[in-house]
């Protein structure tokens, strides 16, 4: 009883079960190659060629006498095809009974993803037990899933950026919007900090829109935003709260003289002619001002209302000026307000 019985296998069976095998006969010449391995060297008949003319060893081990090397138990071969791709191969070897030849069963290993494209291999080129197809399938499916995930991440990132920008600024002027203004005021009130609020409404802006068009109007709004930003400090807030309405918040500034100076300078600059293409737009501004120190405790809604009343008082007085207001004065109508400018 032999514990390693020999069996006889037809070449057809070998081709089907090991389509990447190579048989090597006397003088280390190739006597047969499996159909898939043959596809890697199209137009070339490998049979009869010297083994080392087709394959190049990648490691020590199967150099020298091939038969001797292959006879080592558990021998693995690491090869490279001698073509322009130098495709890597790995495999098992076995010496045939009576040292009649060598059977080598090869595989592309991890290089298979490149190899299928390079040699135009199909599903039928792999044995049913070979997991290459499953691996290729996994590779593609995972690439797909990964692509969906990165698409999602990119979309989310874009949406987040856009939402952040939207939440913070007015699209046209880049100034803060009402939401941010509310947050700023809320913060100032909650930490009980002194501040002043200026409500500015452009004069004659509607005329610019009506006579010169909306593009000119948009340009004027951008210039106004620049002026307002330049005439305020870093720590102040400039918000656009309506078409041509702005609210400015002056952090830690309640001195009427300083506020008057700022308002005057702003109005003066707003009155400078603004060129747009061949036209010139001429606007001005009316301002209402309130300071938190006149309120105990400061109430944002009431301050806004009072600033608004002061603004209308400025309009009543013939525009292009500013008006201070404080609690108790609103009820007495515009003429009782502290006037300046």
């Amino acid at each position, binding site marked *: 009883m032999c514990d390693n019985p020999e069996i006889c296998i037809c070449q057809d069976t070998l081709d089907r079960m090991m389509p990447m095998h190579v048989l090597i006969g006397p003088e280390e010449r190739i006597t047969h190659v499996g159909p898939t391995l043959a596809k890697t060297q199209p137009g070339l008949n490998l049979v009869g060629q010297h083994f080392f003319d087709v394959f190049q060893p990648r490691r020590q081990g199967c150099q020298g006498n091939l038969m001797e090397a292959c006879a080592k138990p558990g021998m693995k071969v690491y090869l490279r095809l001698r073509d322009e791709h130098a495709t890597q191969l790995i495999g098992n070897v076995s010496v045939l009974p009576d040292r009649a030849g060598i059977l080598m069963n090869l595989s592309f290993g991890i290089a298979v993803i490149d190899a299928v494209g390079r040699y135009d291999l199909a*599903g039928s080129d792999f044995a049913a037990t070979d997991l290459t*197809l499953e691996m290729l399938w996994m590779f593609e499916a995972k690439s797909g899933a990964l692509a969906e995930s990165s698409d999602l991440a990119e979309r989310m990132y874009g949406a987040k950026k856009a939402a952040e920008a939207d939440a913070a600024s007015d699209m046209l002027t880049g100034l803060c919007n009402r939401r941010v203004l509310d947050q700023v005021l809320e913060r100032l009130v909650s930490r009980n900090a002194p501040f002043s609020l200026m409500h500015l409404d452009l004069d004659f802006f509607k005329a610019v829109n009506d006579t010169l068009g909306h593009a000119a109007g948009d340009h004027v709004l951008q210039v106004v935003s620049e002026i307002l930003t330049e005439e305020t400090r870093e720590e102040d807030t400039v918000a656009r709260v309506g078409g041509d309405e702005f609210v400015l918040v002056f952090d830690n500034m309640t001195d009427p003289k300083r506020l008057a100076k700022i308002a005057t300078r702003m109005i003066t600059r707003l009155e400078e002619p603004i060129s747009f293409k061949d036209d010139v737009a001429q606007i001005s501004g009316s301002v209402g001002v309130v300071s938190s120190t006149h309120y105990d405790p400061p109430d944002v809604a009431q301050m806004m209302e009072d600033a608004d009343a002061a603004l209308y008082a400025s309009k009543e007085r013939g525009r292009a000026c500013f008006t201070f207001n404080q609690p108790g004065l609103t009820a007495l109508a515009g003429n009782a307000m502290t006037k300046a400018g």
Partner: protein
Amino acid sequence: MHGLINGALQGFLCATYGHELWRKVMDELDTGFESFEPMFHYDDALTHALIDTSAKNLGKPRDVLLEDFGTYLVANPRSERVRRLLRFGGVDYADFLHSLDDLPGRARLAVPDLNLPQLELHEHGENGFSLSCTSPNLGFGHVILGVLRALADDYGALAFLEHLGRSGDCDTLSIQLLDSGFSEGREFSLAQKVTEHV
């Protein structure tokens, strides 16, 4: 329902019937969003409402719309990735049919939370098959019918397919493979093309 399925439905409806229909359907559904995220999860009820609303707007029976969706998944270039992943299943149509049992398992390998209907192929004689599709979701069987019909063309096989009805959770399809080499079919190369999907 997995967002990949809702997203594919969206792709199908937009590619076939235009964005106008899509907006109308989403308006009616009143979800508060305009499109499905492929990697999110949605209520099954929403998917069914999406199918019903679309079918109603198009004046098409639900089953026919779902079968068209199945065809789209294989035949439309926008869904090339799905077609390729299916074609890996076999070297010819018969081989592919035998791989269907593994399809839900394969899908889960790629996307662990993607649940596809359970498929079981039975052979009846030389070229006759029946396929049972088990899923609590009504209509999957019709999608599979569309997929299988389109794949027969893709492989170049001539096959006669029929939906035999639903009993309980299980739809049964019958497949008669008349000629596996009927036409050239579409090319399929194992190597992934570099071009990205649409």
